[in-house]
């Protein structure tokens, strides 16, 4: 655990799990910060809760029914396409780090990968899946 004692000193034992310790510390401090701010505000702020005040805001008119209505299917399409393209983007990271080592062979591998994605992409555009208005 010697790496821990020199938290501010960078690039020491850079590749070990112990170096993730600062992240834990940051989480604790973030929680503490938010809790203190909200707690302090609750302490000094007024507490006069009336039913009118606690109503949901809907520009002054009474709100109709539950807000949690079903959403359009377009959002789902965007989300699923995002998942697929996100995985594609993540595959690029190991390539980008290594590609000098991989040379032209690696380049053609990645070109094939991208081309297959582009076929899917063209299909999506042609089908009009990303057209917001029908």
């Amino acid at each position, binding site marked *: 655990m010697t790496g*821990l*004692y020199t*938290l*501010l*000193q*960078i*690039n020491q034992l850079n590749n070990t799990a112990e*170096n993730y310790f*600062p992240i834990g*510390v*940051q*989480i604790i*401090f*973030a929680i503490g*910060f*938010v*809790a203190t*701010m*909200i707690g302090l*505000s*609750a302490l*000094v*702020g*007024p507490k006069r*809760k009336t039913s009118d*005040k*606690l109503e*949901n*805001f*809907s*520009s002054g008119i009474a*709100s109709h029914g*539950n*807000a*949690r*209505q079903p*959403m359009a299917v377009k*959002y789902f399409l*965007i*989300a699923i*396409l*995002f998942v697929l*393209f*996100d995985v594609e*983007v993540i595959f*690029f*990271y190991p390539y*980008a*780090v*290594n*590609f000098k080592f991989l040379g*032209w062979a690696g*380049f053609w591998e*990645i070109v094939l990968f*991208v081309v297959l994605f*582009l076929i899917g*992409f063209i299909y999506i*555009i042609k089908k009009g899946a*990303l*057209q917001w208005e029908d």
Partner: protein
Amino acid sequence: MLNTISFEAIKTAVQQWLNMHWGPHLAFIAECILIGLLVIVFFAVLGLLLVFMERKVSAVMQIRLGPNRVGPKGWLQTSADTLKLMLKEGLTPDGADKFLFNLAPFLIMIAAMLIMVPIAFARNFQIWDINIGVLYISSIASISVIAILMAGWSSNNKYALLGAMRSGAQIISYELSAGVAVITMVMLTQSLSIQDIILSQQNGWWIFKGHIPAIIAFIIFMIAATAETNRAPFDLAEAESELTAGFHTEYSGMKFALFFLAEYINVFIVCAVAAILFFGGWMPFHIGNWEGFNHIMDYIPSSIWFLGKTFCLIFLIMWFRWTFPRLRIDQLLNLEWKYLLPISLANLLLMTIIVVLKWYL
């Protein structure tokens, strides 16, 4: 070199002092606490400064004065605003999911604070250099989408839910082209660590020596960054004229202030990342063999370089906000999926060819 007053020197001095007086264990704990407090103080100052800057910038662009009553030239306006928000009542609406409603501000601040970890503020001044730093930043940024959806859904408000859905769809869409733009730069450095990326720009920033693909990547990254932080012209998630305030419509008092703070911190973070990737972070500006000029540039502290570049980019993003009209959601998604994503992928392949052929310095 003027290293006596740099952040690096202060850091080493504090470290030495702590280790001398308290022994390694206590010194380590003290360091952790110091860093945590420093980041929080930095957040507070940054929030106050950026809100003030935004108001002044918008005032200048619209030929008016902006805040000018509280404090000299209005400098204390944002502090007064924060104090006012502090003294307001924090409401949780009746129909809301109480637990998630109150959890969302925590999550969004944790995400903002975690992204600060790998960012280098000055020479050798960084909380911790993660060896996959850039990827880490984008992973934590994708967590904040969940906080936004959580806030919007738990409010049980139609404006909030619609705003959250729009904002979620927008952030995830633009994350793709931002990610590809980042990878384009990683191609040049072959390392994801922030420290390595900055050090690789010793003899020139990537925007200058990365040829055309670097410039295209920069433009794409700035557009995507503006969209990811939900700022105008991409602010249709909180389009005031139709959705009141988007996902944080129901938040009041300090909880609202925290969302507001997180928004500005995110602006700072994306600009800091852009400064690191394209403009060399804290690297001073050097021109080839002009020894004298380079020496003068070296005299400017590295923290000034970093903050200067970052604030220039923040100004650029603010400039966007007060210049362009808001997009419609179909235009927004078309821009990303039909233009930015294919262009950035092609740009990435172009960059790969350039680097494989060793056409760069």
